[in-house]
């Protein structure tokens, strides 16, 4: 049963275009849900609307069987009555209160007896491993410690939903990794529904059980991280998720018309598609190199290419390729033997192509056709 339901949510700020446009979202109980998108896509607004800090222009928000907002029926539950937790990007710790008092605050408001309060505070502080800092003021803490206090403050009141607004974006790379693990641990232990907002697709992929990709206030795709990655619903999702981004050619591309028509033609014939293909994408790690066209497995798409630059990162190799008249990126886990200016053949399997129609929507007909044919032919090992 879905825990949080957003129905037909619109949000329009004074005299501006829609920040959120007709959003439907169902978040299951216990989910670790991520709202992913570029800045200004409406994800933070959505989060703030769930918290009640922002009011929708139209629509309804429910948690479990309680209506929190319903513009049409005139129902509004103020944020202080929603029993949620919200961790801000800036942490928003209260500078005039110690760590303990910061964490204590919500419990005091709930009028919980002081013994119980102390126990609860102690428990959360030690869960987040900051029990030694309880008498310090926020200004005396490092960024990572502040982050933990902000989390502890919201966990203390045992919220039915925990909302996180870009919680890791102010931390350095190492701390971010540590806090990611921390968040996962908390979710595993607490089993609360967590909704968090990020523009970092890696964060979304590693943490979430469910990802909602948004752009321009419109929900683009909702699915598990692997679904989002493997079967992006449209061009926006395909290009936004993945790093380096997906190699993408459109039929009317002016930058690489030859390689575009080659890939589009290949996809149309392999998928036996009746509708015209608009664009084709292939992820960098799905591209392969061979020294000669003869080494390419039968049936795979291939084209002559020239190596322009090889960029080793230590764990993998990124290659910039000139494929016919277009520029592609390739990522390989194995060492690349070629050097700059080598003439090679670049190829990929039919099942690794992402095919979109002229309105940039995924053509599932292609996926079905390829799956069917690979069952017939057998996997091309």
């Amino acid at each position: 049963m879905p825990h949080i339901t957003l129905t037909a949510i619109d949000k329009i700020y004074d005299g501006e275009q829609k920040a959120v446009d007709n959003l439907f979202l169902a978040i299951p109980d216990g989910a670790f849900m991520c709202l992913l998108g570029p800045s200004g896509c409406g994800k933070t607004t959505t989060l703030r609307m769930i918290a009640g800090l922002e009011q929708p222009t139209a629509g309804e928000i429910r948690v479990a069987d309680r209506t929190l907002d319903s513009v049409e029926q005139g129902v509004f539950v103020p944020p202080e009555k929603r029993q949620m937790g919200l961790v801000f990007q800036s942490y928003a710790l209260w500078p005039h209160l110690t760590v303990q008092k910061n964490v204590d605050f919500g419990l005091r408001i709930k009028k919980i007896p002081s013994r119980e309060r102390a126990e609860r505070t102690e428990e959360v502080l030690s869960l987040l491993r900051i029990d030694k800092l309880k008498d310090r003021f926020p200004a005396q803490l490092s960024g990572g410690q502040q982050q933990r206090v902000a989390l502890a403050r919201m966990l203390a009141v045992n919220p039915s939903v925990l909302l996180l607004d870009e919680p890791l974006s102010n931390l350095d790379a190492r701390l971010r990794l540590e806090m990611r693990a921390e968040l996962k641990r908390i979710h595993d232990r607490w089993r609360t529904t967590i909704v968090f907002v990020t523009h970092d697709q890696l964060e979304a992929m590693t943490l979430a059980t469910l990802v909602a990709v948004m752009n321009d206030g419109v929900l683009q795709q909702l699915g598990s991280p692997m679904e989002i990655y493997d079967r992006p619903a449209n061009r926006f999702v395909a290009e936004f998720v993945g790093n380096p981004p997906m190699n993408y050619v459109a039929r009317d591309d002016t930058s690489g018309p030859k390689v575009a028509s080659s890939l589009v033609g290949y996809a149309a014939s392999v998928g036996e598609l009746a509708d015209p293909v608009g664009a084709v994408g292939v992820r960098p790690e799905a591209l392969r190199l061979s020294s000669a066209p003869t080494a390419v497995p039968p049936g795979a798409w291939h084209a002559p290419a020239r190596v322009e630059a090889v960029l080793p990162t230590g764990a993998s190799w990124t290659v910039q390729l000139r494929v016919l008249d277009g520029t592609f990126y390739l990522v390989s886990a194995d060492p690349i033997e070629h050097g700059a200016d080598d003439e090679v053949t670049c190829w990929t399997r039919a099942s690794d192509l992402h095919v979109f129609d002229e309105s940039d929507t995924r053509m599932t007909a292609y996926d079905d056709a390829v799956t069917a044919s690979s069952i017939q032919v057998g996997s091309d090992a």
Partner: protein
Amino acid sequence: MPPEPPRGRFGRTKYHLAVARHEPTKLIGVLLAIVFLYLIVAPILSVASDAFRVHFGDHVHTGQEPGAWTGYYLWRVFRSDVSSILFWQPFLNTIVIAVGTTLFALVVGGAMAWLIARTDLPGRKWFSTALVVSYMMPSWTFALAWLTIFKNRRMGGRQGFLEAMGVQVPDWLAYGAFPTIVALGLHYYPFVLLLFGNALRRMDSQLEDSARVLGARRRTIAQRIVLPLMLPSLTSAVLLIFAKILGTFGTPYILGLPVDFQVMSTSLFQSIRNRQNGVAAVIALVVIVVGILVILVDSKILKEYRRFVTVGSKGSMDRRTKLRRWRMPALGLAMTVFTASVIIPIGVLFLSTIQRIPGRFELSNFTLRYWIGTDLDSVAFPRGVLVSGELYSAMWNSFRVVGLAAVCCGVLGLLVGYVVVRTSGTRLSSMLRQISFLPYLVPGIAFAAAYLSLFAVQRGPVPALYGTFTILVIVMVIGNLPYSSRAGISAMMQLGREPEEAAQVSGAGWWRRMTRIVTPIQKGALVTGIILPFISGLKELSTVIMLATSNTELLTTLSVNLVDFGYLQLANAVVLIIAAMAFVATYLAQRLTGSSLASGLQG
């Protein structure tokens, strides 16, 4: 897709009401906006309408019914036989004073700023505080000191020091344009010192170094790099002084009256005293329009320059010009400025209060009667200031009015900041921001005239406020509102809305958020927001001179009244008391809040 949610009747309205019930911010904002519209925009509209409506008693001259639309006052002010006295001469004088004072302040303040910020002048740090002192004194302190020294036989009462020593002082030196310029210049040069000095200090010395590396000579660097970069702060200082002088009253009144030297502010004051309300309204409108023009030009210039002004600020290394053999002369110059702007005025004022006949340095001539005497040979003020009731009642009034106004300023400022930040992005937010800035455009004395026009009689449910403490408090609060709300907005901006929202999500209602989170965090800003208006309010004269009556005498108006009566020594004593209070308050404020003098630029 799931079905659309069911639509109830009036759901949307009900929803907004439900939100408003739990979130009073918007309501507070709307209330503030209404109050400000009434207290800021309505007086200006009222004075504008006064300028074009026939007043009772003038129907004989105009041949129109009272209340009818008329161009009579425009004609009277701009084209009639008396318009030269009413308007053109004061207008010209104002320009002379403004230009003269600005130049004076620019030369003195600019030189001092350069010496302090960019050279190895001995005692730079001390001077950077000492040279600002003259701005902390009431602006007409210098006028009184000037009179005390240069007053000649033209005026009644005791003569000045020089006359007492047997020197004939010509009128041009004693009264009118020249002394006004010097007195105002001595008061306003710290303005340039602070603004220009700040800009000099913040300038990235790498910019100069780059020019030097490219082979530029000092002179070229100064002309082509430093000066253009400093121009915005200089123009800003100049225009602000210009705007201030437009509304300043005390100095031109004290030094101009004996020779009938009128500026716009004093002419406006006279018109109101003579109950020529229509004429006064026209003059007030002119003052307002000129004030607005000056500020608009300033903001336009600043906007033009903003393109490059923000560049730099990093690597502002301490690079100072070595003065070498000019070091001592420079020190002498700085000491001279300090002496002229602080020691002489205060010393002269003090001396005059302890001498029977000013300027005669014999032991028998010294007396404490002006402070504690009980048998002064005057009818209206027979007792010394410290033993007469007037001082204490005026002091008590000042404390009450200024204190209440200052508390209102502090609270209102933060409240405006709160609403502006909480509702940021909405029309309410930007409207509130703009209205609260409006009084900045209106010179103080014109604002007082506008208040007189609106609140002299009962209007609807609002009783006639003229002669009450309420109107003094209101005019002080509104006059200070631009500074207060700007400070409040920046304090709230710095805090952001998130700490409060965190409390909200944790379950705290509005009142608890205000008392437990917002107010404790903003304690420092609140204290500063009260103390600064308090200091400037103690010295405020232009806005209150027209609104205070004998029942609502303040320290500042008392001192000017004493001048009117010709009791210079008593007036001097009162001004010294005001200055002492302002000093103490400033000192305490600095100790308490660590705020710098530069932030006290208001008032």
